[in-house]
């Protein structure tokens, strides 16, 4: 596996920025924003490493979500009750919003009066829609499985 370190740092940095930006939007306290950033950086680092290793986007996303969920659990004593919320904040930069938009645009295009090459359009739209379902499912499953296996009274 070859790792482009610059690309990895780029993904981790912007994952951290996006997660902490959403942390402000979700009204995390100042103290917790650094943990949002850490969580986002960890998620994007693992997802990028997974993709570099030849994994599909969905498999890499699942691993990243599970790792962030585990990280939150392991640091529970330090982070207090916020651990699950922090894991969710870290996973926000992996939400397939772009794919969702492309899938809906594809559906709109398919229903136009005279679409160009409707078969190809249908396949592309289906591909985007499936990516949304599987990527969102991978995040949800990664977080939920960890939450249930490493269950605590304040979950």
């Amino acid at each position, binding site marked *: 596996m070859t790792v482009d370190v610059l690309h990895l740092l780029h993904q981790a940095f912007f994952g951290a920025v*996006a997660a*902490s*930006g959403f942390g402000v939007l979700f*009204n*995390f306290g100042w103290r917790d924003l650094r943990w949002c950033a850490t969580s986002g950086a960890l998620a994007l680092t693992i997802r990028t490493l997974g993709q570099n290793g030849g994994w599909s986007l969905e498999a890499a996303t699942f691993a990243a979500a599970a790792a962030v969920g585990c990280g939150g659990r392991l640091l529970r004593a330090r982070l207090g009750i916020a651990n699950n919320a922090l894991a969710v904040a870290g996973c926000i930069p992996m939400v397939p919003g772009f794919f969702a938009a492309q899938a809906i645009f594809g559906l709109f295009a398919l229903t136009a009066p005279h679409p160009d090459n409707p078969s190809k359009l249908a396949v592309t739209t289906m591909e985007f829609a499936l990516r949304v379902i599987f990527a969102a499912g991978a995040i949800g*499953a990664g977080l939920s499985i960890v939450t249930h296996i490493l269950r605590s009274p304040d979950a």
Partner: protein
Amino acid sequence: MNIVDSTKATPVPLNDPELEQIAMTTLLIGRQLMESGARAEVVHEDCSIVAHGFGAEHVDLRSGYASVDITVSRGANTITRTMEVGPHGVDHRVSHALRDLVRRVQQGNLTPSEALAKATGLKRDTPHFAPSLVALAAGIACAAFGRLLGLDWPAFLPVAAAGAIGQAVRQLMQRRLVNVFVIAACIAFLSSSLAGLGSHWAGSATVNVAMVASVLMLVPGVPAFNAQSDIMEGHPTLGAARGVCVIMLLTFIAIGVLLAQVLLGVQP
């Protein structure tokens, strides 16, 4: 089969006013937890802790998307109450403060009336970031998200600015209690148009990505996770309702972006 004739049933007078207060305090905490982005299981667990902490012997809770219902019993008395739930948002500090309140009730440190007073003022008393800071953070988050999607550098600042302006207008519309789906479509159109124009003027080769990236603060990520968790944890009705709302929101966001793309002549 026994069929009860309700017309002949004897009404039971409420002789436990404290039970009423327990039910309403528990419902208020449950409602605020839902409005601040908690999963159904957390709402159910915390409401059960609160009601039992105040001395209820039996508690049943039903959480719907727009209301929560509770039945609490103590001795021979049973009451059922319902409370509407407002727009579902995400507010971590309110959620944290509510769970702290629940722990204090569990430890026996609060009476129902004290807890009710604290829960009533909790949203008002919890600190929030200045709206301008939230708008700026949302803009930067959109631009950072855009970089993860392949946005080029010339489009970075236009996307951040468009996202920030969109978030600022969104806050104004939320204060005016505009419908959440209408807000999504309007803000998607505004932010996407601004990002498209800005990135085009800046010489970006990724105008299409810029137009989508600028609206990513609208994507309901937490409700999507909550929908999955609720279904997995035995609350399929609430989970399905959340899922439908997520799909509706995404559709309205896409309509806004699509209109902007048609206006600017950008191919989706």
